[in-house]
């Protein structure tokens, strides 16, 4: 198995069809692109043709939404086979999906559903991650999701659960800055506790995104620019974890590419500022 730690890639964006032309003809200042794996698990045509061209110019990371790693339904070997086949074509720097489940009994709810933080769920997920890593021949990267409910039966915190999965299954973590912020607001925990609660050496990617505030709860909609509070937490995350490949997620109300590149520049500025401060502190 390829267990080498994924490289630091800098600042990336999600690859969206609305931006294909600008990316191919404009060479935007984006260090890498993340693709939704399922969108390219298709027989052929323009999307794969364009992806082939973009991957010649930019590093690519594959991000799935339906691995359903925490589901009690059997692993879908057809899905895993198709994922592996796409990875052979794309040669991604890493493959990620979410620490969640998406359905049982052959149904896919097309949502990232929460898991109870129990020993039973932990054992189950750890076993499944190991199986998936064996099939893919590489370590998986798992993302913490936004959630709206907590379970009465949970026996540990989310960060304890996430850390145990990463350490026991020996996988990488995608630290979604926005998701931690959303879940912390929804469930009343401290973002700092989560930040300091996960193993630093396992985190290989950040997601940053916008959300919708519904007063009593926040919904992770990826349809707004990143808000100041999430940028503040991103600054803390960079300070704590050091340089980590950062990517801005936008899935709805997709603006012109230049707007997202400007947001990405803001992430660059924050990271540069944090590093400068760290260098000054080290020099003192």
């Amino acid at each position, binding site marked *: 198995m390829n267990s080498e730690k994924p490289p630091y890639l800098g600042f990336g964006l999600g690859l969206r069809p609305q931006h294909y032309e600008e990316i191919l003809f404009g060479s935007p200042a984006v260090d890498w692109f993340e693709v939704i794996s399922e969108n390219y698990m298709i027989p052929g045509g323009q999307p794969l*043709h364009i992806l082939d061209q973009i991957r010649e110019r930019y590093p690519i990371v594959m991000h799935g939404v339906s691995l359903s790693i925490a589901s009690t339904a059997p692993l*879908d070997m057809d899905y895993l086979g198709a994922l592996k086949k796409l990875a052979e074509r794309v040669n991604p720097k890493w493959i990620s999906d979410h620490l969640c489940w998406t359905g049982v009994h052959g149904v896919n709810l097309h949502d990232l559903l929460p898991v109870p933080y129990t020993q039973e769920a932990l054992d189950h997920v750890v076993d499944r991650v190991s199986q998936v890593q064996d099939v893919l021949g590489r370590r998986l990267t798992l993302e913490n999701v936004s959630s709206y409910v*907590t379970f009465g039966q949970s026996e540990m915190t989310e960060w304890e659960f996430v850390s145990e999965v990463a350490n026991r299954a020996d996988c990488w973590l995608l630290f979604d800055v926005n998701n931690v912020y959303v879940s912390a607001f929804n469930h009343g925990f401290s973002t700092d506790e989560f930040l300091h609660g996960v193993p630093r050496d396992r985190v290989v990617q950040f997601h940053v995104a916008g959300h919708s505030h519904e007063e*009593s709860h926040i919904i992770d909609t990826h349809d707004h620019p990143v808000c100041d509070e999430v940028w503040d937490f991103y600054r803390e995350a960079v300070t704590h974890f050091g340089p980590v490949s950062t990517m801005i997620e936008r899935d709805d109300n997709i603006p012109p590419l230049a707007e997202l590149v400007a947001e990405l520049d803001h992430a660059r500025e924050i990271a540069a500022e944090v590093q400068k401060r760290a260098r000054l502190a080290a020099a003192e």
Partner: protein
Amino acid sequence: MSSLKELQDTFQRGILAGDDAILGEINDSDKEQRTVLFGVYRNAYVSRLAEILGNDYEQVHAYLGDSGFAKLVKSYIAANPSDQRSARWFGRHLPAFARDTAPFANHPEVGELAALEKALADAFDGQDAAPLSMATLATIPAEDWPRLTFTPHPTAIRLTFNTNAATIWSALKSETAPPKPTRLPEPQALVVWRQDYMARFRPLEAEEAMMWDEAAKGVRFSVLCEMVATFAGEDEAELRAATYLRGWVDLGMLAGCAVEPAKGQSPAGAGNRASVRPVSQ
């Protein structure tokens, strides 16, 4: 305490069937009641799938309007829980659903409009294949032409419409007022396929449709010419067949051709597709 399996069953029933048993497993937050919080998942399921169908069936949406399309989508989602990992395939049963389910079944142009949009989407990301070129055809010796067979492009899909859905689609696509739905005096044949990464379609007259269908079955060129002669008269039948063929090649509707072995040439015998000599592209 429920097992993980029981908990996921209950959670899923809560989303799909509105079953409230899941509320016994989850907590209120400091700021909100659990019914509202679980409602986020319930609402997301329907709204996400409705959005997917709206993207997949833009012209059906335009034709039915927001409220008519919302009715179609709501009943489709209720009848078809998604069984696909990728949302790309969730709406694949919509044409048959609209064709067979009241009140849409009383408006057959709706199901046909959906069938056209689905075929265009399927052609768009269907299997790749280099189109058969005139240059390749030109390499076929004249004596081999009678034994020539053709392979449609793998994205090619044949549809038969009883209504003017194709005309309605074209009007909606160009954002002009669609004509009134009508039942056609004769069924209309259409081929949908992909050329230069663009999904497109064209109607075929009855004779061309007959020849296309037979060619797609692997019938050789000499027999296709005989069929064309039988269909609309012997006069210039070969020329008509060659003209249709030329059109298919020009439009990238074919992916290949092959010369069947002459009788006695192969122990497998003529007509055995496995013994066909493919012509390189």
